């Protein structure tokens, strides 16, 4: 049995270059997409609703943010427009999933395919070709702070860490933790997802809590998409989320519906993703075989679930619509 040549070359790179450190900066730039999506969806799922359509909402968010930024030249306007798109879609989804109580798996899948189709078709007909937009990035630049910090790798790390949406996404972890564990609202969300009948008996409006949690998750998903197009890349591409929304769903499993553990799983995944990206782009010869490296993060997701998520227990009422009797 012979190892693929890509693997041997990658191991060489790991030992002989500072690629592990460089990847850390890149992973911090990849992380927010999964973090926004997973922290939002975590609250949604805690309330007992599974929104499989976040991938679609992310795509619509990314597309809306890009188009509005192209039109107005201001990435903040793009971000607001993306939030609005997430709000509209998730109001619709929460209505059919919570109020009507339809099959959440099928509706979520439909939402994803709809988002994939609509953004792909409209991008082709409406978007200007090859226009990169001003991004919502760090006020610092790598070249200006490298002399102060002494090393380029550290400078890259600092620039990544000072990008506004990166900061917000990292802040979401303690916020979500405190919200779910230490506040009455968070406990309400959890109770609705665990035992809706009892929650209802003590006077909680189960469906209202679920609708709000679903809308919150949808808005976070649209920000996750907007981050990709107007902060990370400055561009839009058909299907650019590339399964990141589904990865976020998987990270919630791996983290056993706990914000901190979900964050650790997401960080591990982003780091693996960044590592394969920097290895694949380290030489032309490896870049030509990108499809070998492209498999790695997706396989990593499955491995992370196997390692971390084995004893995961979903909220008891996940995907179970509540009808007052």
């Amino acid at each position, binding site marked *: 049995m012979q190892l693929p040549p890509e693997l041997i070359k990658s191991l060489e790179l790991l030992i002989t270059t500072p690629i592990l450190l460089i990847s850390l900066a890149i992973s911090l730039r990849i992380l927010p997409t999964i973090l926004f999506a997973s922290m939002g969806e975590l609250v949604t799922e805690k309330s007992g609703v599974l929104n499989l359509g976040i991938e679609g909402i992310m795509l619509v968010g990314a597309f809306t943010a890009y188009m509005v930024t192209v039109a107005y030249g201001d990435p903040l306007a793009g971000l607001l427009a993306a939030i609005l798109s997430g709000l509209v879609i998730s109001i619709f989804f929460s209505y059919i999933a919570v109020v009507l109580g339809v099959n959440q798996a099928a509706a979520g899948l439909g939402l994803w395919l709809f988002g*994939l189709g609509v953004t792909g*078709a409209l991008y082709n007909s409406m978007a200007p070709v090859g226009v990169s937009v001003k991004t919502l990035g760090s006020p610092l630049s790598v070249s200006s702070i490298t002399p102060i910090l002494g090393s380029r790798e550290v400078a890259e790390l600092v620039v990544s860490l000072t990008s506004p949406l990166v900061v917000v996404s990292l802040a979401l972890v303690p916020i979500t933790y405190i919200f779910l564990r230490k506040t009455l609202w968070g406990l309400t969300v959890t109770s609705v997802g665990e035992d809706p009948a009892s929650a209802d008996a003590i006077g909680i409006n189960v469906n209202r809590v679920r609708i709000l949690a679903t809308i919150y998750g949808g808005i976070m998903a649209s920000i996750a998409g907007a981050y990709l197009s107007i902060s990370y890349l400055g561009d839009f591409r058909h299907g650019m989320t590339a399964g990141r929304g589904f990865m976020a769903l998987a990270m919630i499993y791996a983290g056993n519906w706990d914000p901190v553990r979900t964050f650790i799983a997401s960080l591990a995944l982003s780091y693996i993703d960044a590592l394969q990206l920097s290895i694949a782009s380290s030489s032309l010869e490896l870049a030509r075989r990108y*499809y070998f490296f492209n498999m790695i993060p997706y396989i990593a997701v499955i491995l992370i679930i196997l390692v971390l998520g084995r004893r995961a227990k979903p909220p008891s009422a996940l995907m179970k619509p509540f009808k007052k009797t």
Partner: protein
Amino acid sequence: MKRAKEAFLTITLYIVAILAGFMAASTVAITYNIGFLDSLGILAVSPFADLFNFSEVLVRFIAIYTIALGVAIALKAGLWNIGGEGQFLVGAVMTLFIAKSLSTPHPALTMTTMMLGAGFFAMAWALVPALLKARFGVNEIVTTLLLNIVASSFTLYALDGPIRGQGSFGYLLSDVLPSELRFPALLKYPRAIETSSGVGFVWEDTRLSYALFITLAMAIILYIVVERSPLETHLGVVARSWRLASYAGINVFRIVVALMLFAGFTAGLSGALHIMGVLYRLDSGQIDHGFGYLAVLAAALGRAKIVGTALASIFISFVIIGSESLQRVSGAPYAITWVFVGTVMVAITIVEYIRGWRPSAATA
């Protein structure tokens, strides 16, 4: 009388759901400067334009329905195999790999090995999601979907390595399947040619092959084995509640794994049939074929019934041919098909709600 009324209502609701999909797709098509009614017209008429277009409908039907059979059987137990998209691809890769590396005394033997090999390889592809679902309750939609992305990269990897064609000149494509390993064409169509004495016709093979009978035979067997036996009820119990099912003496672990693996098998087989009957080779353009997701829609639209799924698959095939014509006329990308599929998926969940059917999704 009451039953007829109920059936009428159901059919009407499904038609409304499908119309909603057409409306959404045609609305998006407006951005390609094509009128709303024009695009609806193209969608409806072009599949019947000539014999060739009609045969192409059946070509799509074979690919979609073969995958959809597995999806439908699993869906009876509330399991969603979204992985058909990738399992189809790895099946196609395995088909070509066997064709390249195996030589048997008789082509029929090689062809059988190719089909079974593709099916079993795709089954192996489905194994991890199956075990994760059955053992830990990990959502099978998420895992099978992520493996689709792995499958498309794997296919490119294979096209650059094990099944790379002799004369591919740096393009990612495989060798063409030798003619004795292909399914013969089932139908010929008259193609107009210019001859010395005006316009004449030659009869040419369509891409519709005898693979159709393999799909239909499988459907009939499944109908007898699953829908005409207590298995149907067992699967329904699993769909309702795993706990309930195990109280009733059903081995949930075994049934969940078996269903997910079977769904993988049919998807892999579909990939084999598509290579052996239609494409004869694989290239990088095939990695977003979309049949796996269309099969999910077919099974959902057909209410996970063998006959219903067949009708839904044939209907979806008509839509695909229509939408391909629409794409040629308007320059719209394939993505427009997903607008239709996504809208219909959401709409049928609402139809199911109106009809008072219980949502089917297995939870541990």
